[in-house]
């Protein structure tokens, strides 16, 4: 037996290891010695045999019923783990479903919010539009119904003899409207445009589109001694009227 092994055996580390009283590092050291040196291995096996023999000398009769208690406990533990597993699986599923539905509802909510904004905007637009139209209709009603309103018949000059229009002007309410009831046919690339000269400024009132709606009243900006013009312009309208193309004027 070498000195090294003798020293090792003298430390009693092997005995401590046998009883399970060594630290992790000590255990590793002992296991290394057992693996490397047959003498140590033999001693260890011997100690194990002795331990079992000596322990058996001290055997005591266990009370009846202890076995059942132990087996019951172990079964409980087994059931405990399987129960836990069941709960874990159930919880996982619940979490998955929750996550899925959360995502679905989040998306739906987002879409609804977008739609809501869209609808609100539309309603606002409509309201505004309605207000404008209502105001217009109200004014039209006032103009047409008011005894102070003067009615001017407008006829086209030579360039547009078929042109017929009626202007309604109310100096009290300071409102003026024009109804174009008939327009002559124009080449494809031409159109009628309406103007008003207010305080020396020429104001563009827009292109007279197809006169399908013969009852339509056009609002005109009101001013004392204003003059309304209708001109023939290039398709799409002009920024300033072409004076030589004036086909009708309305003094009001």
């Amino acid at each position, binding site marked *: *037996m070498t000195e090294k092994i003798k020293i090792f*055996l003298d*430390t*009693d580390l092997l*005995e*401590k290891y*046998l*009883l*399970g*009283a060594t630290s992790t590092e000590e255990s590793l050291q002992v*296991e290394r010695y057992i693996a490397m040196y047959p*003498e140590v291995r*033999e*001693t260890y*096996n*011997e*100690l*194990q*045999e*002795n*331990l*079992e*023999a*000596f*322990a*058996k*000398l*001290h*055997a*005591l*009769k*266990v*009370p009846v019923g*202890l*076995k059942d*208690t*132990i*087996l019951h*406990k*172990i*079964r409980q*533990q*087994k059931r405990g783990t399987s129960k836990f597993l069941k709960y874990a699986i159930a919880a996982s599923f619940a979490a998955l479903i929750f996550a899925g539905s959360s995502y679905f509802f989040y998306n739906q909510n987002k879409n609804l919010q977008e739609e809501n904004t869209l609808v609100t905007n539309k309603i606002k637009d409509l309201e505004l539009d309605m207000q404008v139209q209502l105001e217009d209709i109200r004014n039209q009603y006032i103009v047409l119904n008011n005894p102070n309103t003067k009615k001017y018949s407008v006829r086209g000059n030579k360039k547009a003899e078929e042109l017929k229009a009626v202007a309604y002007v109310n100096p009290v309410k300071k409102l003026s409207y024009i109804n174009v009831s008939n327009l002559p046919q124009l080449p494809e690339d031409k159109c009628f445009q309406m103007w008003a000269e207010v305080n020396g400024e020429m104001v563009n009132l827009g292109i007279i589109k197809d006169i399908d709606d013969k009852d339509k009243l056009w609002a005109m900006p009101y001013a004392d001694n204003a003059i309304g013009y209708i001109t023939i312009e290039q398709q799409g309208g002009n920024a300033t009227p072409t004076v030589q193309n004036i086909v009708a004027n309305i003094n009001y």
Partner: protein
Amino acid sequence: MSTLLEKHIVELLQERDEKAISLLYDNYADTLYGVAYKVVKDEDLAQDVVQESFVKIWKKSDSYDESKAKLFTWLFRITRNTAIDKLRSVNTKSDKEIQIDVSDVYNLGVNTTRPEFMDVKEHLDKIELKYKVVLDALFFEGMTQQEASEELDIPLGTIKSRLKIGLRELRKIYGTSMVLIMIVSLIS
């Protein structure tokens, strides 16, 4: 070295078959109860220790490494450590009442009157007390030979020789032929 039964039990343990615990109990419970009792010196506590130990054995069954320890050594380690933990927790709880309560003298009185202890005593009596003390110190109290020498106030040389004789006596009881050679190698 392991017997067929041990191999069978180990297999069952590794398969986590409940039968393993039943077999372990039938074959080792008495011994482990004795081990627990040697440490805690109280029957109720020892039973608790056995119970807890078996639960631990079941829980740790896949950590048993056949190449590192005999089945019994593994069972012994778990039981002994559980018992030591139990004793510690009880001692801190009741301010060492148990130790005072269950002195050796008291135990001897009780044990001798109980029939289930007679059988054991018969065996143990074959080993002289002075050897038994050394074996106890080594196997149950986990003392090193040096520590035993200091604790029992016996010179180290005497401890070594008593251990040698004690083991020889032990072997006589369990009589295996190759014991002596092994003991010699252990002690020298």
